[in-house]
Every structure is written in C-alpha cells, then in structure tokens.
C-alpha cells in the first residue's frame, strides 16, 4: 500500500521576475516500510521534492497523497498536526532550540500533545537515545556535543512520536564518512522495524545503503534502481550499481 504518493507534481520558484521551474511533472509512489533515497546532483530539486511530499512546502500543480489524505487540500494547522504525529524529520544542519538541552529537544514535538504522560515519554526518549548511543548526553547543552552526536539526537527526535515516515534531507551531509555510515546503520535498523525512511542525498555511498533509489536530474525523476536488503558486506557491490546508473543517465 502507498504511504506517500505524488501525482504530476510541478513547482516553479520565482526570483525577481524570472521563473525557475524546479519540479516538472514528477510522479512518485512510496510503499509502506520502504527504505528509499532520492539521488541527484546539487540543485536538481531533490529537497524541493522531499518538502513537497511531506507537505512542508506547497506545490503549484499535481497532488500529494499521504496516508490517504490529499495534502494540497489541508490547512496549515492540519499539515502541522500531520507533521507532528505521523512524520519525522532529520535535517543536514543541526536544527535544535538553543534554550533546551538534548533530552528536552528530543521530547519537544511529542510534548505538545503528550504533556500528561511525560514520564512515559521521557522513558521512551531515553530508550531511543540508548539505542542511538547517546543516552549519557541527555542533560547536555546542544553546544556541548559533537556533530555526529547531534545528528543522532535529531534521529531520536524524529522517532519520538513513533512516526509512519521519516524524511531525511541530507542527514549525513555534515558528517565525516565513518559517522555517516553509523547514522545509516541506525536508519536501516529503524526501517527494519517497519518505519518508512526516505532520504535525499547527493552521495552515492549513502544512496547505496537504501533499497530503492530514485535518480533526479533537472527537476524530473529520470531513473530508478532497486537493491536487495543490505547485508553489511555488499556496500562496494551496491556502489558500483549506483555509480554505473548515474553514468548511464549522465549525472
């Protein structure tokens, strides 16, 4: 069953008087439980597509269906409710509130509705943090931990409300490659528990960890590659496939 699907999405940015078409009739369908990545050169419209599919940004034409709802017909408030309860986001740059510590930042999205069972939520947050390997950082300031640790905290925050889909916009973009692979390990394990994970990346090594890769170029999806579940030893193999597809379509 499709959890997210886009039908002929078109979006144009206007800069001054000039029109910049960024998405041209993009259609995409993502099944529940998929581990999927959007791959393409910088500026081809990957992020724009991701934000369109998550209802964070509006589109000019087409339709986005999320969990059976047409996002283009929802109000700001309904979209916010949806983001809070059914979606999780991981961004490239740390996006945390400076005035809250790590644990509170992770709890933040869930606390809006779940103030009454704060104890259970804290318990859950600590569990997730434990799994992500940052349990001992709970009380730290966000300025007192490393970039990799912050990104793990970001994943914890994305998971706190037990979302159906996790969207990641270059979640490893600011990390060195060892940290990046560790993050991908975590995302893969989350996916293996049933959560749909959708990433945007320009890094073939990251895309190669996912099981379905959409290749974008100049605002359109130009190719698609499906890979089997990652075993832990077949990274080089997968890389070759990704890179050769890229060469084939000329990106």
């Amino acid at each position, binding site marked *: 069953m499709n959890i997210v699907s886009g039908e002929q999405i078109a979006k144009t940015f206007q800069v001054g008087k000039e029109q910049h078409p960024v998405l041209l009739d993009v259609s995409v369908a993502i099944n529940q439980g998929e581990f999927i990545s959007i791959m393409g050169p910088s500026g081809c419209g990957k992020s724009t597509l991701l934000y369109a599919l998550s209802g964070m940004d509006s589109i000019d034409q087409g339709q986005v269906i999320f969990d059976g709802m047409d996002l283009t017909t929802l109000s700001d408030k309904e979209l916010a*409710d949806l983001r809070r309860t059914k979606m999780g986001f991981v961004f490239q740059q740390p996006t945390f*509130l400076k005035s809250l510590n790590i644990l509170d930042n992770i709890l933040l999205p869930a606390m809006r509705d779940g*103030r009454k069972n*704060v104890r259970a939520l804290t318990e859950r947050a600590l569990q997730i943090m434990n799994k992500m390997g940052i349990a001992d950082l709970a009380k730290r300031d966000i300025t007192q931990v490393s970039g990799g640790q912050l990104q793990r905290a970001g994943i914890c925050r994305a998971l706190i409300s037990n979302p159906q889909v996790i969207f990641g916009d*270059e979640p490893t973009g600011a990390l060195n490659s060892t940290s990046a692979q560790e993050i991908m390990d975590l995302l893969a394990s989350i996916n293996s528990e049933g959560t749909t994970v959708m990433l945007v990346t320009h890094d073939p090594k990251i895309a190669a960890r996912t099981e379905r890769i959409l290749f974008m170029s100049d605002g359109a999806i130009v190719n698609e590659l499906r890979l089997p579940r990652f075993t832990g030893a077949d990274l080089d193999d997968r890389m070759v496939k990704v890179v050769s597809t890229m060469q084939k379509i000329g990106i």
Partner: protein
Amino acid sequence: MYWKIVRNDMANSKLITGMTMLFVAVAALLVTLSAVLIVHLTSAIDTLMKQAETSHFLQMHAGEIDQVRLTEFAEQNKYVDEYQMNEFLNVEGTKINIAGTTLAHSVQDNGFSTQSEKFDYLLDLDGHVIEVANGDIYVPVSYWKDGIADLGDTVIVQDQTFTIAGFLRDSQMNSMLASSKRFLVSEQDYAAIQEAGTVEYLIEFRLKNLADLKNFEEAYTSAGLEANGPTITYKLFQMLNAISDGLMIAVILLISVLVVAIAFMCIRFTLLTKIEEDTREIGVMKAIGLRVADIQKMYLAKYGVIAVIGCMLGFACSFFLRDILLENIRLFMGETDKVSLIWLFTGLGLLLVFIVIMGYVQSVLKQFRKLSATQALRFGTMQGKGQHAKLLNLSANKRLPINLFLGIKDVLSRKTLYATMLAVLVLATFIIIVPQNLHNTIAAKSFITYMGIGNSDIRIDIPQGKQNEQQVSAVMDRLEHDTAIKNYTVLTTKKFTTIAEDGTAQNLKIELGDHTIFPLEYAHGEAPVAPNEVALSVLNAEELQKKVGDSLAVVINGQKKNLRISGIYSDITNGGKTAKAAFSDHSTDSMWSVVYSTMADPSLVADKRAEYAKTFSFAKVSGIDDYIYQTFGTTIHAIEKAARAALVIALLLCVLVTLLFMNMLIAKDQAPIAIMKALGFTNVDIATQYAARSIFVLLLAISMGTLLANTLGEYLTSTVIASFGAASFDFMINPLAAYVFCPLALTSVVLLATLFGTSRAGQVKIIEHIKE
C-alpha cells in the same frame, strides 16, 4: 563616508530608528515643557508679586483695632518701608448672589475690598492696577475659571447691584489654599454695603529688606499688636501661588526622567542587537584595519543624527502642548517677561537630553573594544554559547502547557535580552501607579488629616465675637440632642504667650479641646491628651526649635507652665502655625471655635449641612468634601490630569516598546520558529509562545513596578508633598485601580501589541530556514 553609512543604516532599519527617535523626541518634549513651565511659573509669580507689590507681612485681624498704635509701630520700626491697613468686609456666601446663584456652598471667606493705596494691589488680567468705577465689581479670577461668574453678570449684595467689569488677580489670595477671596468695589459702594458683613483688617507691611522678615515678625509679636487671625508672610504667598502648578511640573519632570530611561533601554537594546548582527561585519572591518575608533565614530554619528532629529521633533511638538499646560498659570499669574530665559532653559534642557543620550551610546559602544576580530569572524557573535535556565526542564514539566513552558523558558534563558522589556514595563507600571496613588491620596477624605484638619463629616466654624461662647453652646446643645449626629467635638482656639529659654515672649495660638475624637496624622509623636501636653505644627516646631518630648513654657492664666511636646503635625491652616492642647482654660477669650461632627448615616450629610447652615447663620457650616474640593480642587485636578496623561503615555510606551521588541525578537528568532513549525507546531502555538513570553515578563514587571511604586514612589511623592506642608504621608491606594484596572489595562495593551507584533511569526517560511 560616515554619512553615507549612517544613511544606509537608517534606511535599512526604519522602524527601529524611528522608535528610538520617537523616545528621544518624547524625552525632549517633556524636558522642554518642564523648562517652559518652570520658567513661566516662577517668573510669572515673580512678576505678579512685583506688579501687585505683595505684602511682605500680613496679619489678618478680626475685632478691635488700635490704628494709632499700629501707625506708631510702623513709623518707629526700622525694618518697615511702608505700612497700610486694608479692610476686608467678610460677607456670608448666602448674601452674595452672582448671576442668580448665591455663594452659599463656598467654603472660602468671601468678602469685599477697595483698591489698596500703597501696595498689595488687585490687578486686572493685563497686570494693571484696577481702578473700579461705581457700580462695577471685579471678581476673583478663580470664579471665572470655575464658570460661576462671567463678564457683564450681575452681582447682588445687600440690595446693591453690581456689574462684573472684569476679573482680578490677587497676588495674596489667588490660590484656593488661601481661604479668603477679595471682590473689588469702589470706595463709595464699599461704604454702602458695610452692613452686609463683618469687617476684618488686613494689617500689611512692606519691609526695606525682605531678609529682615524674621526680625520684623519678632518685633511685631513682642509689641503685642493686633494678631487675631492668621499671619502670612511673603514666602508663604509665593508657595501658595506655586503649589498647584508646581506639583504638575514635578510630575512631568518625573515622567520625563523615566522616558529618558526608557530611551536608554531602547538604545541599548537596538545597539546591542545591531552589534550582534553586525559583529561579522565589524570583524571584517577590524580585519581590514579600520580602527575601533572609526567604528565608534560611525555609530556615534548615527545616534547623533537620531538624537538631534529627536530633540528637534520634541521641541517642535512642545509648541502644541505648552499652551494647554500654561493655561492655568497664565490665568492666575499672567504672562512671563522672561522669554529669553525660557529659550535658555529649553536649550539647556535639550542639550542635556542630547548629551545624556550620546554619553549613553558612547558607554554602550565601549563593548566594541572588547571584541576581537577573530572572535567576530569565527562565531559571528559576541556571546558565548547559549546559557539557559537549567532548572526548568521539559522532562520534569507536567503542569504547564508546552507553549507556556517554552515561552517562560525562553525568557529565563535569555534574561539579558528580556531585561530591557522588563525594565520598560516596570517603569510603565511605576508611572501609571504613582500619580494615580498620589491623586487618590490627595483626593481622599482622610488626606486632610495630614494637613491639620480632622476627618469629619461636617465642620462648623464659629467666628470670634462677643457671642462666641453662647453660639458655641447653642451649637453643642443642638448636636448633643440631634440623634443623626454620631459624635462631635468643639475645638476652641485661644491666644497664649510662650516664653523662650532666653526670656523672649512669642504669641502662640493653641486649639484647645479633645484632639483624639477626630485625630490628625502626626508626623512625630501623638495627640496631646494630658493637661500638660501640647502638639505643634511643623512650622511652629521649626520656629520654636522643639522636638517631641521637649518642654515649652506657656503662660496660662497668668502663670508660666511647662508643657511637654507630645506630637508634631503638618498643617496648612492659619498660615501653618498652629498648636493643639487638651488643657482647659477660662482666662482668655477664644479667637474662634470649630465644631467637628460625624453622622451616623453619611448619606444625609448634605441635608444636615444645609439644615445647620440655616439654623446657625452666624457660623460657616461646610461639608468636609466641599472643603477638600474647594481647597485642594485645583491641585487635585492638576494631579488628576497628570495621572491621566501618565496613564496614556505609559500605555503608549508599552505598545511601542512591545511592538519594537517583538519585531526584533521575531527577526532574531527566524530559525527557531522555522524549526518549531517543521516539527509540527502550528502558527497558533508559536503565537501563544510569544504571548506567554510577553505576559510572563509583564506579570513580573507589574509585581516589581507595583512594589517599586509603593516604596520608592511613595518616598518620592512624600518628598514632593512635604514641600507644601505635609510632613509624613502614606499612600492611599485604590485597590481596584492599582491592582485590577492598571494590570488589566497593561495586560490587554501588551497582549494586543504582542499579537500584532508577532503576526509575522506565522509567516516564517520553514523551507527558507532549514532547506539545504
């Protein structure tokens, strides 16, 4: 080059620049107004008293008078320049009919006079000595202002009809605080109405040298001359003339100081935010070798321009307001001739505002020096890492709704940032509450107890005279058997002689009776109870150099007795020099008596007063409310005006500051707002958080401001009030106004401004701030 940078900078931050300029302008406006008012008031009083040639020493006297003895004294006393004796025909209010209504309700001692011969002239509104024709009458200007009399109206006294030919300024009795009011008629008319009232004498002296006043007073007293009535000196005339408007000026000055403080805080906030924003640029400038002094010069230039324009704006606006504020002074005191002095003071005031602002900017700019180029370039900020309130944790929060929690947490985390807004709101609360409490205090019935008058419902003044004793017993008899009267007391004033340590004698009027029934507020000590106790008014205590517990030698019934000073109280009645004691005396005649009474049912006071006024035609019967209104009316009114202006100004300031603050906050908070929205917080959530911040800061500010108002504010106000005679003083707080209305008004205004100021918060585009 600086000019160009400054111009660009201002164009880029129109709102903030405009706001800062506005505060500077308001400060300049108020300082200018105070300067104008002070110069105008003092010089107009000066001119008035010069033109009128006000008496240096006035002794009012009722009863027998030995003119020969007085003239002799005046001729022989070396201090006296000129002496005259004026008559004042005291006529009951019921017998004076102005344009169809009588002055029955007036608590003033209304009476008629002819123009003085040598000095103490009654002036027309152009400052000329009035020459009044037969059949014409000049009426005190206050009756014109109160709408009681108008030009051409008829005044009827004892079948004599007069036409109001004009209004007069009386340099001695203009003020409502001076209880007598002189109407001016011609000599011939004066003679015709003799029968309408009783004559009081104004024994007046001008001295060769005002500095000798004290010596002269002593000489007059020790000569045992006529002294049955209040004694008033030049100084007291000056003060009486200055009080009402002086108080208004004091309030305006107070507000202007606070506005300057608010302007400071705005500058601090904008400048620090600007520095924070510009840190990177400043770092670059430093890195490319511009010197700190150059950067400072640039900002100084910017604020120099703002301050100059602000000052000019404030100055310009002062022209629209000064006429309204000067109205009263012009009417009672006349024009000023010190135009150049006004310009000078205005210029000095504006210069002061300018210097203070630039000095402040300079001191804030000192922070630039501490900033190193690398720090600025690397971090783009001067502050270290985000310090936050460790105590408040989301994981430990069950009670507060999340948006409230986040709002409060943010305030606590960025204390220095919110300190600005807090301080402004504290000051706003302060300037709303203090004038209001002051007004409330002065308007309150019990305030007169600070002024030497017992708090009662009805006051009956029985004048001196042969029948005084019978009249007093008649009144007492009536009150005793009137069931509507709850309690009453008779206080009789008699004249005694005190003997100082060095043997010199001095007159002292002592009010005898039970002073515990309608007690005064005592500045020190308490009311006299035992026969050997006496209480002195502040002025008398100062003059006799006595403190509570000291003893005072008084001649009673031919014998010298030592009385203990039981208390000292403030007094504005009878020239401020009074005394009170509880001993009984039958050795001397009484000068006058006052009967105070309260009623079981206060709603019947007006009827009862009218009834007594009819029955006791020999006495002056007044309700204390009327008494307060007519005595302090002008003052109360001036303070009420000031309090209202303060309220409006403070609320306006709150709106401006909140708008300004919220705008800057939103500009600063784009990133966290985008994060929250991305995480699923709705626009309503964000707005609620900002409202929570505002309200949290506001509640804090209201509590602090109220506390400050009731401590520092009370102290400041009592200092002001002490200057016109009341030595000790407590705020009378109207809880509804101070604790309900004021917070409510502030809250709604701040909340509205917050909602308006943060309406942009919802428009923050998530993707613009977090998309890679």
